[in-house]
């Protein structure tokens, strides 16, 4: 019979050995970095997810000892709040470009200028040069993809009316006048909040930012706190929107449309056309619109006018505990190798050299992406975004809705947007 004393000593020895083994194991364990993305690895219907997984596997293979854990948040709201509250996780975040000024201003993001230099990243091998993506002279996010507003429409409806895709806002008005009847919306101009982070986000992103800047005029100052759009340009754009409702037959019910409602309308055919995001085209085709869905370059005041471009960037959390590994991931995500994989997942990737031809560009999707990339190079520009996009979109949405619902003037709308945004900035700074 083993005495109690021997049993106790055996237990103690086993516990010590286990603790030692744990410490040694921890020392040699892989480094895990958290990558926050809007793409859910569990969604096996989204080709972008498959591309993301392939990219991360390739990264882990090239970097033994580093594991990537994907933190999913389709709306980005949770992990961006974590950034703003100085959390150490996630290490790498995929952020929509127009949110970068806010996160940079809160000190949440580490500048990537050193990374670009050390990895010898070609600053011109992008659909829009990297220099244009800097804020106050610093690069806070490496572009992953770009989106430019396009005119998406139901072919059968336009063809039946003998209409062509519009090149100008006047032509878009004609489409609306002709097709808005019997429960259909000829051209949806939504100023609602559906599907966004707050306020008229879809409207601001896809229409208004292009209308008031036309690629040349300033939108916001470098700090994102000053609204720089001139009264003249704002009033012209606001009047155009008001005319859509008062002269072009856009039903007032469309005023509350946001991303979701326009998406559903194009899918179901109750919306004949809209200026919408190219990243939605494939999803609307798959969801029911099928071959009847087509696209054309978006309308502007002049044919081939400039369009505001948005897109996802990948950024480094300033409070990350694994910055070296995180930087490797960022550099890899922006590399031609990873971008080529992302391209075949359906994104209009940001790297220009990826579009040099190949079997993929013989497919319909490939041809579409190549055409969109040319559109971005030819007509796209990066506006200077507001510091608080939600505060701006809230003010913009309410001002323009008041203009339509309460017959306010475009000038009053301008005053309201300017003063409300300024008030929000004074309070938050």
């Amino acid at each position, binding site marked *: 019979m083993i005495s109690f004393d021997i049993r106790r000593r055996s237990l103690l020895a086993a516990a010590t050995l286990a603790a030692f083994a744990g410490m040694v194991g921890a020392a040699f364990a892989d480094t895990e970095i958290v990558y926050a993305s809007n793409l859910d690895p569990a969604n096996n219907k989204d080709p972008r997810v498959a591309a993301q997984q392939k990219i991360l596997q390739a990264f882990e293979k090239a970097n033994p000892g580093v594991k990537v854990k994907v933190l999913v948040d389709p709306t980005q*709201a949770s992990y961006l*709040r974590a950034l*703003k*509250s*100085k959390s150490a996780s996630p290490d790498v975040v995929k952020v929509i470009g127009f949110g970068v000024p806010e996160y940079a201003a*809160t000190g949440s993001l580490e500048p990537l200028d050193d990374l670009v230099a050390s990895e010898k990243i070609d600053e011109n091998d992008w659909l829009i040069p990297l220099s244009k993506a800097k804020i106050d002279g610093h690069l806070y996010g490496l572009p992953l993809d770009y989106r430019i507003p396009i005119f998406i429409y139901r072919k059968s409806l336009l063809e039946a009316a003998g209409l062509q895709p519009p090149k100008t806002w006047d032509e878009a008005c004609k489409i609306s006048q002709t097709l808005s009847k019997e*429960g259909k*919306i000829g051209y949806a101009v939504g100023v*609602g*909040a*559906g599907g966004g*982070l*707050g*306020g008229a986000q879809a409207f601001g992103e896809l229409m208004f930012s292009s209308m008031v800047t036309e690629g040349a005029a300033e939108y916001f100052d470098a700090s994102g706190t000053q609204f720089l759009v001139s009264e003249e340009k704002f009033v012209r754009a606001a009047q155009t929107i008001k005319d859509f409702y008062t002269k072009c037959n856009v*039903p*007032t*019910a469309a*005023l*509350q449309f946001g991303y979701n409602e326009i998406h559903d309308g194009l899918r179901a055919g*109750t919306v004949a056309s809209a200026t919408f995001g190219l990243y939605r085209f494939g999803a609307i085709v798959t969801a029911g619109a099928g071959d009847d869905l087509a696209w054309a370059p978006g309308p502007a005041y002049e044919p081939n006018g400039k369009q505001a471009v948005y897109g996802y960037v990948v950024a480094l959390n300033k409070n990350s505990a694994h910055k070296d590994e995180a930087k490797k991931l960022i550099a890899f995500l922006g590399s031609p190798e990873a971008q080529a994989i992302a391209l075949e997942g359906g994104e209009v990737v940001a790297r220009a050299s990826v579009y040099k031809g190949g079997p993929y560009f013989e497919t319909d999707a490939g041809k579409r992406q190549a055409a969109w990339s040319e559109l971005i190079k030819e007509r796209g520009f990066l506006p200077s975004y507001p510091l*608080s996009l*939600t*505060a701006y979109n*809230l003010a913009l*949405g*309410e001002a323009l*809705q*008041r203009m339509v*619902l*309460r017959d306010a003037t475009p000038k009053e709308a301008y005053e309201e947007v300017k003063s409300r945004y300024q008030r*929000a900035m004074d*309070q*938050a*700074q």
Partner: protein
Amino acid sequence: MNSLVGSPPLSDTTEHLTSEPKPRKPLQDQPLFWFAPALVLLLVVTLYPLAYVLWMSLQKTRYYELAGFVGFENYAYVFSSREFIDSSIASLIFVAGSLSLAVPIGVFAAVVFNSLGRYASFFRVVTLLPWTLSMGVVASLWLWLLNPSYGPISYAMSQLGLPQSLLLGDPDLAIWLLVITTAWWSFPYVMVMTTAALQSVPKELYEAVDMDGGNSVVKFRFVTLPHLLPTLGSTALNLAILYLTIVTLILVLTGGGPLGATATWSYQVFNGTVQTVNIAPAAVYSVVVLVANLMLGYIYVRSTGRATG
């Protein structure tokens, strides 16, 4: 020689004259010892956040950081803004309107079902369904019902020859549609509480009214209602507090619009905390909601004190 030997024992009345202190109860025999963990937990999850929000409301904030004590500047900023007036009106209409619909409908349903005998259970279960749905589901359902382009309500209105309406897109109508949606979702709660209270009404009182020749209205007014009042009071208070804190229903149904018409105080807290990240004014709105809830509680305590005499 022991002077106490043979002496009669000291009586109880003389025990207090001894100089020896009463022995203390062991710690584990003191009630507070056993309540302490629950009390600590309660303090941590209620008083600490409350104190922190009060502190935040007196600070200037920059995103999630406190940037310096500013006294009541945030209160002055909020109370002098147009948004506060609009939110106050929206909150008042929302709470009072929803209560005005949910309570009478709930009472009516309870009284009617109570008279249905063995079929009562079936109707109660079916009527309870809205209350079992999450606010997100309720809002999504009504968003479809009230869609001005293809919703069934809009269609029915057109078939009846009624003028087309923007429904949730109409700033003057949206708050009332929100009230109807909320009342639809919450009246089953009133029905359940009222049903329980109805079981305690003495049957002899109804028999007495019958003997005096009283009808159903008299029975309800002089027998049922007085017995229901305490229950209805607590139910209405619970619902009022719930309505004041609702965000999900408003967020999904209207997003606080159109033109801020449905942005209640609690919605402003959500907006300031999550959307625009303007924490200090959001903290002020939180304090306003707290004060409103405390006032509702006080009114209830005072009024039920009078009712029970």
